[in-house]
C-alpha cells in the first residue's frame, strides 16, 4: 500500500506542476465520461432495456459521490468515520425541511443549502472529534451520528419522526416518468463534485492531508496545523456527503431517519473498501459493484443477503486488502511514471490472453444480465429464459444471435484461460461454470458476485503466492524485476 | 558456543535493516554490540529473539536452529530479553511485574540456583522497598532494574540487554554497571547492545561494531582499545 501513495502523490505532482487545468488528462477523462454517461439513457431507451437501469445509474452516481467524499476522510486523511451517514441525513433533512416548510423556497437554493448545512454540522461535530484518533475517532463519530439519527427519529413535530418527511415538493421536471431528466441532473452534479474532490485531494491541501495520515507527529513537527487540516477535510467530506443526501432526498421526494442510520455508514465503508481505500476512484468502483450485488443477489435471496455480504467482506479483507482499484494500482509498483506509462505498464502486466479472460468474464456477466432482464429485446414475453428452450423453440434469429454471442464469449474465456497455469485454469473454469449453472438453474443474475469472485481468486494467488505470478506469462516477470531493482 | 548468528538479513516491511550480520557468543561471556543509533543493534536482538524474523541466515542457540521461531519458544529455551524502552507493565505492581517473568529454567535448575524474588532483591536491593508500587510510578533507573529482574525471573541462560544505560543518570548507570558485572560473575552469559561504549567496554570481554546493518569490527575489548581508527570512525570516542 505504501507504494500506491507514492504513485498518488506523483500523479498529484504531474497535475500540480503549474499546468493549466486543460492539460490535465483526468479532466478530459471526466469530460468524456460525462458525455458518454449523459447519453446513456437514450441508449437504454433505444435498446428497450428496463427504465430501472436509469434509476440504478442515478443511485450509483449519488452513492459514488458519497463514497468519494467519505474516502477523502478515510483514504486520504486516515480518519475512519463510522457516522458519515449523519451528513447524508443532514443534507436530506436540510433541503427537505426547507422545501417542505418554506413555500417560497427555491429548489436550487435548498439544494445549495444542503452542503452548507452539512459543512456546518461537520464543523461542530468535527470540532469535538478530530482531536481523537483511530478507534476513538470512529466511536465518537458513531456516537454523534447516532445522535443525529435520534433527533431525526424523535422530533415528530419538526422532522416527522420515524415517518420522515413525505411528499416534499420538487419541480415537475424531476417527476419525469422515465427518470431521465433527474438522472442527467444528478450526473452533472456528481461528476462536477467528484472532479472538485479530485482537485482537492491533488492540491497542496490534499497532499498535506496524506502527510498527516502517514505520520501525524512528523507533520506537526514540520509546522503543519494538523487539527485544522483535519477539520477542513471533515467539513469538505461533510458538505459533499450532505449534497449526496439531498440528491437522495430529491430522488425519493421524501427523507427518513434511516438515511442517517449507522448501517448506512458501514455501507459506504464497504464501498470504499471494495473499491480501494487508498485510491481516488476506488470508491466509485466499489459503489457500482456493491449496488450491482445488491440489485442482483440480495434481492434474489433476501433471506441470506447478509450472508453474501458478510462473506464478500471477509473475502475482500483477506484476498484484496487494498480493494479492487487499489489492487490494480499496487501492481504498478514503479511510482515515477506519468499516467500513460502507468497504464501501459498495467496492461503489460497481463498477457494478452489473460485479457481475453477478463474481457470474457465481464462480457459474460453483462450478456447474461441482459438476457435476464424481463421484457428486453432479447427475450420474447412468454419465456423466462430463452436459452432454456434452445432445442424446442427452433432456430429464430434471436436465438442464433444469442448462440453466436454466447459462443464468442465462451471462446474468449477459454482462450484466456489458456494463459494460466493448469491449476488456475481449472479453478477459474470451475468458477465460471458454477456461476453459469447457478445462473441457469436459479435464474439469478449473479454478475456482481461472479466478478468479485474472479478478481478475488486471481488476486489471492498473486498476492499470497508470489511464485504463482508466473502463472501469467509474458510481461509480468520483466516488470516485477524492474520494480524490484528500483526498490533496491 | 551458546549463540551463533550466521549471516542474517532482516527487514521491517519494505525497509531492510540488517545486511548479513554474523556474531557469536560463548558460554559465560559478555559480548557487546556497539554502534550509533539506527545501525541495527536492536534489530539484531529482535532477530535473535524471534520478534522480527530474519529473511535470510540462521540463528543457532545451544545447537538448535531457532531462526524465526515464536519469541515465547525462544524465551522458553532460555533466552532472556531486556528490551530497549524498558517496557515494564505500568499498571502492575513491582512484585506482579516480577511474577509475570517467572518461568522454570530451560533445562532443570539453573545451576542449582533458581531465580526468586528474593534473589532479584539481592541484586537490586532498591526494588525490595517498592514491591507494591505500580510499575508506572518508578523512576527510570528503577524501571531498568525491574526489567532486568523480570527477565531474570525466567531463569535465562543467555541475557540479551538492549541499551540498559539509555537515558539514565550517571550515578544510576554506575549502579547498574556494578549489578550487571555481578550477574556476569555469577556466570550469566550476556549479549549487550550499547551506544554508550564506555559503559559497555567496561563490562564486556569482546565487542562487535555495527554500521549500516553490517558488522564492521569484531574482536576483544583490548583489540578495540588499540584500534583507534575503528573507534574514531564508528564510536566517535
Amino acid at each position: 500500500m505504501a507504494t500506491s501513495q507514492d504513485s498518488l502523490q506523483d500523479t498529484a505532482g504531474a497535475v500540480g506542476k503549474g499546468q493549466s487545468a486543460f492539460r490535465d488528462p483526468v479532466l478530459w477523462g471526466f469530460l468524456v465520461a460525462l458525455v458518454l454517461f449523459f447519453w446513456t439513457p437514450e441508449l437504454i431507451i433505444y435498446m428497450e432495456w428496463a427504465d430501472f437501469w436509469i434509476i440504478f445509474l442515478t443511485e450509483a452516481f449519488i452513492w459514488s459521490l458519497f463514497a468519494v467524499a467519505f474516502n477523502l476522510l478515510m483514504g486520504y486523511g486516515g480518519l475512519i468515520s463510522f457516522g458519515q451517514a449523519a451528513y447524508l441525513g443532514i443534507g436530506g433533512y436540510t433541503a427537505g425541511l426547507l422545501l417542505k416548510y418554506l413555500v417560497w423556497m427555491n429548489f436550487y437554493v435548498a439544494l445549495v443549502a444542503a452542503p452548507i448545512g452539512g459543512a456546518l454540522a461537520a464543523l461542530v461535530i468535527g470540532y469535538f472529534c478530530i482531536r481523537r484518533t483511530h478507534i476513538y475517532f470512529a466511536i465518537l463519530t458513531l456516537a454523534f451520528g447516532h445522535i443525529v439519527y435520534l433527533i431525526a427519529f424523535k422530533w415528530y413535530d419538526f422532522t416527522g419522526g420515524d415517518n420522515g418527511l413525505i411528499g416534499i415538493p420538487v419541480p415537475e421536471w424531476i417527476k419525469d416518468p422515465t427518470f431521465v431528466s433527474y438522472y442527467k441532473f444528478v450526473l452533472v452534479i456528481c461528476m462536477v463534485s467528484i472532479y472538485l474532490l479530485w482537485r482537492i485531494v491533488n492540491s497542496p491541501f490534499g497532499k498535506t492531508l496524506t502527510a498527516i495520515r502517514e505520520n501525524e507527529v512528523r507533520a506537526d513537527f514540520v509546522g503543519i496545523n494538523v487539527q485544522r487540516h483535519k477539520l477542513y477535510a471533515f467539513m469538505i467530506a461533510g458538505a459533499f456527503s450532505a449534497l449526496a443526501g439531498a440528491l437522495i432526498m430529491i430522488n425519493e421526494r421524501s427523507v427518513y431517519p434511516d438515511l442517517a442510520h449507522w448501517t448506512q455508514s458501514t455501507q459506504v465503508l464497504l464501498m470504499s473498501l471494495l473499491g480501494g481505500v487508498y485510491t481516488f476512484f476506488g470508491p466509485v468502483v466499489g459503489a457500482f459493484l456493491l449496488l450491482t450485488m445488491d440489485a442482483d443477489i440480495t434481492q434474489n435471496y433476501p433471506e441470506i443477503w447478509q450472508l453474501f455480504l458478510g462473506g464478500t467482506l471477509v473475502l475482500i479483507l483477506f484476498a484484496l486488502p487494498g480493494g479492487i482499484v487499489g489492487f490494480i494500482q499496487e501492481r504498478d509498483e514503479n511510482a515515477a511514471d506519468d499516467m500513460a506509462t502507468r497504464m501501459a505498464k498495467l496492461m503489460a502486466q497481463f498477457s494478452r490472453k489473460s485479457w481475453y479472460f477478463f474481457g470474457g468474464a465481464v462480457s459474460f456477466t453483462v450478456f447474461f444480465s441482459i438476457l435476464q432482464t424481463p421484457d428486453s429485446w432479447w427475450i420474447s414475453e412468454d419465456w423466462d429464459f430463452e436459452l432454456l428452450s434452445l432445442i424446442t423453440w427452433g432456430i429464430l434469429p434471436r436465438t442464433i444471435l444469442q448462440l453466436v454471442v454466447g459462443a464468442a464469449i465462451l471462446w474468449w474465456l477459454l482462450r484466456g484461460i489458456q494463459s494460466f497455469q493448469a491449476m488456475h485454469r481449472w479453478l477459474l473454469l470451475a468458477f465460471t461454470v458454477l456461476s453459469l449453472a447457478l445462473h441457469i438453474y436459479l435464474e439469478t443474475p449473479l454478475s456482481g458476485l461472479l466478478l468479485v469472485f474472479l478478481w478475488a481468486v486471481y488476486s489471492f494467488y498473486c498476492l499470497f503466492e508470489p511464485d504463482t505470478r508466473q502463472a501469467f506469462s509474458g510481461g509480468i516477470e520483466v516488470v516485477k524485476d524492474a520494480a524490484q531493482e528500483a526498490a533496491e | 558456543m551458546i549463540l551463533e548468528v550466521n549471516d542474517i538479513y532482516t527487514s521491517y516491511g519494505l525497509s531492510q535493516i540488517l545486511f548479513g550480520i554474523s556474531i557469536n557468543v560463548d558460554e559465560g561471556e559478555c559480548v557487546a554490540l556497539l554502534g550509533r543509533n539506527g545501525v541495527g543493534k536492536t534489530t539484531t536482538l529482535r532477530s535473535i529473539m524471534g520478534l522480527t524474523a530474519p529473511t535470510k541466515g540462521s540463528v543457532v542457540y545451544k545447537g538448535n536452529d531457532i531462526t524465526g521461531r515464536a519469541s515465547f519458544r525462544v524465551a522458553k529455551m532460555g533466552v532472556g530479553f531486556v528490551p530497549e524502552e524498558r517496557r515494564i507493565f505500568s499498571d502492575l505492581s513491582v512484585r506482579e511485574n516480577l511474577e509475570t517473568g517467572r518461568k522454570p529454567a530451560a533445562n532443570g535448575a539453573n545451576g542449582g540456583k533458581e531465580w526468586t524474588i528474593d534473589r532479584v532483591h539481592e541484586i537490586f536491593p532498591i526494588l525490595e522497598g517498592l514491591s507494591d508500587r505500580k510499575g508506572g510510578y518508578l523512576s527510570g533507573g528503577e524501571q531498568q532494574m525491574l526489567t532486568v529482574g523480570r527477565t531474570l525471573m525466567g531463569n535465562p541462560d543467555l541475557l540479551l540487554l538492549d541499551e540498559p544505560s539509555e537515558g539514565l543518570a550517571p550515578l544510576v548507570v554506575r549502579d547498574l554497571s556494578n549489578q550487571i558485572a555481578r550477574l556476569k560473575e555469577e556466570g550469566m552469559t550476556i549479549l549487550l547492545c550499547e551506544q554508550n561504549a564506555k559503559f559497555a567496554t567496561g563490562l564486556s570481554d569482546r565487542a562487535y561494531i555495527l554500521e549500516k546493518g553490517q558488522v564492521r569490527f569484531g574482536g576483544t575489548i583490548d583489540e578495540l582499545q588499540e584500534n583507534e581508527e575503528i573507534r574514531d570512525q564508528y564510536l566517535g570516542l
Partner: protein
Amino acid sequence: MVDFFTNVFFVQLVNGLFIAAGIYLVASGLSLVFGVLGILNFAHGSFYMYGAFFVFTYVGFTAGDFWPALFIAPMVVVILGVVMEVVFLRPIYKADPLYQLLLTYAMVLIFGDLVKILYGAENLSVARPEGFEGTVTIAGSLFPSYQIFVLLPAGFLTVLGLYLFLNRTNVGRTVRAATQDREMIGALGVNVRLLYTGVFAIGAFLGGLGGAVLAPMGALYPGMDFDVIIEVFLVVVLGGLGSMAGTALGALIYGELKSFGILWVPELESVFIYVLMAVVLVARPQGLLGKKVEGGH
C-alpha cells in the same frame, strides 16, 4: 417524601441495578477482549444472541431443565468464538484496526443469517425456571425473583469473578500484562497466540452467558444481536475501553440513568444516554476509567 424514597426511589434504584447487571454481563466480555486483543468485536452481540438461542434449544431438549443450560449454552458459544478467532482473527491481528473492526462486522452479518437458517424467523421464548416466576418483597417493594436471585447475583459474580481472575491468578496477571504490551509478554515466554484464543474464549463465554441469563426475560428473535451491540458499545466506551472496572461503572451509570430517566423524562430517555456518552468522550476520550493511551494500541 418518605414514601417517595422508600417506594419510587428505592425501586427505580434496584431496577437500574437489574438493567446494569444485564448489560454488564454482555459488555464485560467485549471489554476484556478489547483490552487484551485490541479488537472491538462487533460480533459480540452475536455471541449474546447465540447464548440465548442455545438455551432455548437445551431447554427444549430436556423439557424444561434450565440450570445446566446456563453453563452449557455459553460453552457452545465458546466453540463458535474459538473457531472465529482461530480461522478469521488470527491472520489479521497485524492489520489495521479498521480491518479488524470490519471483519467482526462481517461476522455479525454471517452469524445473523446463520441463526435464521438454524432457528427460522419466529419469535421464541424461554420460560423462567421453576420457582423463579414470582416476586419477592424487599423493604416493602415487590421485585421479580428471577432478577433478584439470578440476574443480580450473576452480574455481581461476574464482576467478582473477573476481578479475582485478573488480580489474583497467574493467568489473570499475564492477561493484564498483555493488555499493556503483548510483544513483551511473548518475549517473557508466554504463548501469546494461545493467550489470545483463551481470552477470546472467555469473552465469548461471557457474551453467551449474558444471552443465557437474559433469555428467560425476553423474546428471542434474529436481530437481537443488533439491538444489544450498540448499547454494549455505549457502556464499554463510557466506562473506558478495556477497563473492566470502567465497564462495570459504565453499566451502572447506564442502568440508573435509564431507570430514572424513564421516571422523569420518558420521551428523551434514549437520547440523553447518547448525549452523555458524547460529552464524556469529548471530555475524556478514553472513557471514565480508561487509561490515557490514545489510539487504542
